[in-house]
């Protein structure tokens, strides 16, 4: 779990880790290889931003179909069906994402990302647009992903009770502090007065 004030650089850090944004200094390595050498579709961290984009002319299901078939994923249909069921999107799978609410769009983006089974999954503010049940469902999916060997880094201001991260990172003045629990002296989202 990555914590920090508004403007601390959480989203920027996630974008750099996903290779979406150039870094001015330093380096990012993944499994000992510079991130730039890792192809986006072959092991780079997958990022679900707070406002994901979709194809205007494809339905929710067709997003999963297109990307599943292009990636040659075996059993993508069953996995996609299960993910849509988990996130309560089954009834809307034939609709265009542009007709979805922000929360539904985020759930579709999560479904796409989880279908791809990335080694490292980066989530930017995932709990903000989700209702309580969906947040719980997401956490169970992330636990399942972790059991299968995946790593998940979540940048968030809000942390539902069900969420029990293994490690906490706090981004403060450009420095990262690491711990196994949130700092009790400082609240999770220390926003102003």
């Amino acid at each position, binding site marked *: 779990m990555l914590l920090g004030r508004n403007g601390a650089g959480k989203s920027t850090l996630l974008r750099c880790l996903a290779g979406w*944004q150039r870094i001015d200094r330093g380096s990012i390595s993944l499994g000992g290889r510079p991130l730039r050498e890792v192809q986006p*579709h072959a092991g780079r961290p997958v990022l*679900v931003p707070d406002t994901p984009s979709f*194809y205007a*002319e494809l339905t929710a299901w067709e997003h999963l179909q*297109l990307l599943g078939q292009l990636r040659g994923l075996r059993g993508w249909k069953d996995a996609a069906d299960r993910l849509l069921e988990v996130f309560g999107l089954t009834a809307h799978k034939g609709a*265009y994402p542009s*007709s979805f609410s922000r929360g539904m769009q985020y759930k579709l983006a999560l479904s796409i990302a989880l279908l*791809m089974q990335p080694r490292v999954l980066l989530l930017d503010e995932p709990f903000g647009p989700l209702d309580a049940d969906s947040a719980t469902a997401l956490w169970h999916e992330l636990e399942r992903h972790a059991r299968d060997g995946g790593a998940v880094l979540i940048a968030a201001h809000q942390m539902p009770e069900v969420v029990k991260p293994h490690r906490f990172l706090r981004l403060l003045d450009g420095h990262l502090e690491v711990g196994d629990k949130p700092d009790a002296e400082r609240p999770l989202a220390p926003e102003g007065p």
Partner: protein
Amino acid sequence: MARTSSTSAAVVAFHLRRWDHAVGRWLFSLGFLPDRDASTLGRIYAYYTFLLGAFWLLASWGGVLTLTLQASRSAPQLQAAMRTALPTLFGLSAMGLAVLALARSPITLSAEDASYLAPCPVPRRSLALVRFVPSWLGALGFIVPLAGVASVLASGTPAHYLAAMAASVPLALGAQAFAWAIGLRRMGFASRARRMALWAPPFLLLAAIAFRVPFALAPGRWLTAVAIGGRVATGGLLAFAAGGVALLIAFASSYDLTLVTDESLRRSFLRSIAAGRRYSPAGAAQQKKAAALSRRRARFRLPSSSGTALLLARAAIVRLRYPASLWGTLRTAVVLIGGLDLAVLPTRGNAWLAWVLIVMLFPPSALAEDYAADARPFLRQFLPMSALRLAAVDALLPAAIVAAAGLVELLFIPLPAAGVLPAFLLLMALIAVSTVSQALREAGPDVVASRLPAPDLLSAAVGYGLFIWLGVAEHAVMAAAVVLLIAAAAMTSLLRPD
């Protein structure tokens, strides 16, 4: 009651201040008014330019009247034709105003209005009437000068045009007020059927004009009479204006501010997309498409293929689901084939300058429209192919359409048979250069493996520069094709080979 009138006064004061600011801003941006901190010399210069502008406007108006008078006197049959046509033309203008008021809400709220004004207990009637005034003045800006020109054309003399212009003021008021009345009424119905029913009046008016019903043609006939120095039907003109205004006042509070806000925000969103077209034409097209498709059902299905075949099937399906995107492809075809014509046909002077301007105004963005959708980082991270291959596959279908249109054109222009193949190759080279530069534009700086500033503009400038030099100036069609293909291949190295 007292509270309502004070709120109405506040609405009027708010709009007067807003218009004052808008007019001042426009005049200042045109150099006609000094800003508050301008020096004395600056103020004198601003007033000088304002007077110059006013003089130019009057001189232009005099020129238009003189030309019209000459045309009318040299072709007297025009006078008779105009006298016959003017009642119909006025009726059709009134119908046009009604159609405009029905096609979109007469009242449009800005994003700021939607946030701050709409939630306030603003008297709807006051808001509608205040907003009506500038729309009426806008209609006057067209109708009054046209009435003057029509008078000169119909009478063959400049003796009556001022009277005709004066008579057009109450007519424009009545017509615009009728249009706004039904437009506002439409915004009071949530039911689609009832909203559609309000389209009946303009079409009934059209039918009445077609069947020469005297009632429908009467206002236009009053105007015609004034325009040729006949009797002024003062009562009729005033009754028409009063009838329109009475109907407007009656319906002025019948609209639903929520419906108006909803429609205004949708239009505001589309306007913001249009503003973004300069920076990312294909990206703006994607947003516009999403807004339009969100209310439609999905037709056709993606096949169970993979790789290039699947992307080609998607390219076909997206065009079937949103055929309007083919206009973009057509525009790209016209731009590129127009460039080709400059190379293969004998051209005079600096016609290529006009073509460069057209390319800048209407870049061939259709070639990278699908790539723009794929290049967005969230989706791009799942697509298992290099940027170059993705851009090439995504451009295949629109490029094939442009190439087919070019081939058809090459068969119809006067070109020796031996010249067709080189010309077609040159078109393919133009397509290649355009695809690369547009893909660089849409890929964004993170994907472009270059520290060069604006590599998309640079590659477009180099590609089109080579085309203009070798193709247009030298007419070395084959050489231009080969050099352009080599340049396009070299430019692809700017797309990171991930």
